């Protein structure tokens, strides 16, 4: 496929720190090599573009066996915050920006950001609750229409 016309549609459905970054990194990488990017945030993925939450996403060691922590310990108060702090430190070491700055960067780079209409309604949000980088609130059909022929990633 010609790079000039290649488009990546990324659907972000999760709101944890570890599930936010893959979409952001891929969106940025695509823009760096000239691929068009349209991102759709839905359900818990709405937290990524929620003004109050975007820089406060967490990673939970509960049901993340990769982190190697026994569930009994992982569920103790404060453990999620501790794991989150540690992961944020590692992310920073890799020269990756915090979530909101990352959104700003990929938006400036030309990626388009869309919020899911149904999730906005369900969570009783308005445009004012979302980061300024969000281009529009659209329905699922509208998003699929504008990404016709694109490669779709569901995260």
């Amino acid at each position, binding site marked *: 496929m010609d*790079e*000039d016309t290649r488009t990546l549609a990324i659907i972000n459905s999760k709101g944890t720190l570890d599930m936010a970054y893959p979409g952001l*990194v891929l969106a*940025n*990488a695509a*823009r*760096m*090599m*000239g691929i068009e990017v349209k991102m759709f945030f839905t359900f818990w993925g709405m937290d990524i573009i929620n003004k109050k939450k975007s820089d406060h996403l967490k990673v939970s060691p509960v049901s993340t066996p990769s982190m190697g922590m026994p569930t009994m310990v992982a569920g103790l108060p404060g453990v999620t915050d501790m794991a989150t702090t540690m992961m944020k430190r590692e992310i920073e070491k*890799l*020269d*990756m*920006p915090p979530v909101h700055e990352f959104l700003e*960067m990929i938006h*400036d*780079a*030309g990626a388009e950001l869309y919020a899911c209409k149904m999730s906005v309604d369900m969570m009783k949000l308005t445009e004012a609750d979302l980061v300024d980088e969000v281009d529009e609130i659209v329905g699922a059909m509208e998003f699929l229409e504008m990404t016709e022929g694109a490669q779709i990633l569901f995260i």
Partner: protein
Amino acid sequence: MTTLQDVSLDTEGFMVDPNAWNPEIAEALAEEEGLAPLNERHWAVIDFVRKDWGETGESPTLRRITKQSGVNTKELYALFPKGPAKKVARVAGLGKPKGCI
């Protein structure tokens, strides 16, 4: 005007020896990339990339460029449209970028 005939490039068009780079080669590579003529804002980016490579031995990430060269993300994408990562590295005479950011 320098032609690229004397410059060794790899299969993807990146310079094999970054030390053989000079501003005339940059202009010739920019021509190939459809960026010519390079203006002072292009040079702000290229000069920073060359300087940073000289100091660290690695080509800087786009994020590092936008944080330190005085050229922000929007402008960087306008100066080097359709894939700034490869274009910046190529014109600055460095290898294909390997980073993710």
